C-alpha cells in the first residue's frame, strides 16, 4: 500500500496543479504548478518525503525511458532538421555556452568562493 499511497500523493498534486492551471489567466503548465505546490508541501512538512519516495523514485530513476517515445517522434522532422542544420546547431551551441558562462561567472562572483554564503 506504500506504493499506492505515494502514487496517490503524486497524482493528487499533479491534478491539483492542472486544476490551478485551468483557472489561471496565464497558461502555466499544470505539472509545473504541481511541482511548486508539492515542493511547498514538503518544505512546510505537510507531506513527508518518505511517504512520497516509492513512486517518485521509480519515475525519477527512469526519467530517460519516459522521454524515449518523444525523441522517436523526431523521425517525421528529419528533412526539416537537415535543411536547417546550421542555424539549429549554432543556436543550440551558442546559447548553451552563453548560459553556462553567464550563470557560472555570476554565481562565482556573487556567492563567494567557498560556495556557501
Amino acid at each position: 500500500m506504500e506504493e499506492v499511497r505515494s502514487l496517490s500523493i503524486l497524482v493528487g498534486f499533479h491534478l491539483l496543479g492542472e486544476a490551478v492551471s485551468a483557472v489561471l489567466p496565464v497558461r502555466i503548465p499544470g505539472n509545473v504548478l504541481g511541482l511548486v505546490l508539492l515542493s511547498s508541501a514538503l518544505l512546510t512538512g505537510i507531506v513527508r518525503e518518505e511517504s512520497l519516495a516509492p513512486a517518485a523514485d521509480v519515475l525519477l530513476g527512469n526519467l530517460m525511458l519516459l522521454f524515449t517515445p518523444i525523441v522517436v517522434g523526431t523521425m517525421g522532422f528529419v528533412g526539416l532538421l537537415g535543411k536547417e542544420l546550421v542555424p539549429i546547431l549554432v543556436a543550440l551551441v551558442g546559447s548553451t555556452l552563453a548560459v553556462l558562462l553567464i550563470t557560472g561567472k555570476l554565481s562565482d562572483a556573487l556567492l563567494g568562493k567557498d560556495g556557501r554564503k
Partner: protein
Amino acid sequence: MIADHPVFGLALTVIAYYTAGRLQKRYPHPLVNPLLIASAAIVVVLMTLGIEYETYNQGGRLLSFWLGPATVALAIPLSRQIRPNRGGIPLALAIVAIGSTVAVISAAYLAVALGASSLVTRSLIPKSVTTPIAIELAHLVGGTPSLTAVFVVLTGLLGNLIGPELLRVAGVRNPQAVGLALGTASHGIGTARALHEGPEQAGSSSLAMGWAGIWTAILIAVAHAIGWV
C-alpha cells in the same frame, strides 16, 4: 498486424531502452546515452518494418504520459536542496533566472539571425528546461513538441559533455556555481554530470533545473499573454 496493438510500442521502447542502458553500463561514456541510442534503434526498427510513428506511439504514449507526474516528483530534489541552504537561496534563484532568460533570448535571436524557420525557432525557445516542462512550453509558443524534445536532449548532452571543462577554463571553481550553471543550461542531463562532480554541484544543479523550469514557464507564459510569442 501486431504493431497495431499498443503493447508493440510499449514493449519495443522498454526493451530498446533496457538494452541501451546495459550498453551504457558496459561502456560508460556521455555519448553512450541510453535515450539517444534507444531512440535511434527504435527509429531504425520502425523504418525497416514500415510502421508509422502514430501506430508506434499508441504504446509510446503510455510511457510519455508519466512525464507529468515525474515533473511533480522533482519536488524531492528541489526541496532537499532548499532546506539546509535557505540564506543563499534567493540570490541563487535570481542568478538562475538571469541565466534562463539568456537561454530563451539567445536561442531565439541566434535562430532568427541565421534564417531558421518560425517552427524551428519556436521549438528552440524552451530548449534549456527539463523535457516535461519544455514540451508544455513548445505547445504554448507554437513549436513542435517532438522537435523541442530533441533540442532539449542535444542541449543537455552538450552541457553534460563540456560544461565542467568550459567552466574550469573560464576560471569558475566554486562548486555551487558549477552546479547552478549546469542545471540552468542543461537541465537533467547536465545534472547527471553534476552528480559525478560532487554532492554540492549535484544539489545546486537540481535546484537550478527545477527553478529554471518554473521561471522559464512563467517568463514564456507572460510573454505569450502580452503577445510577444
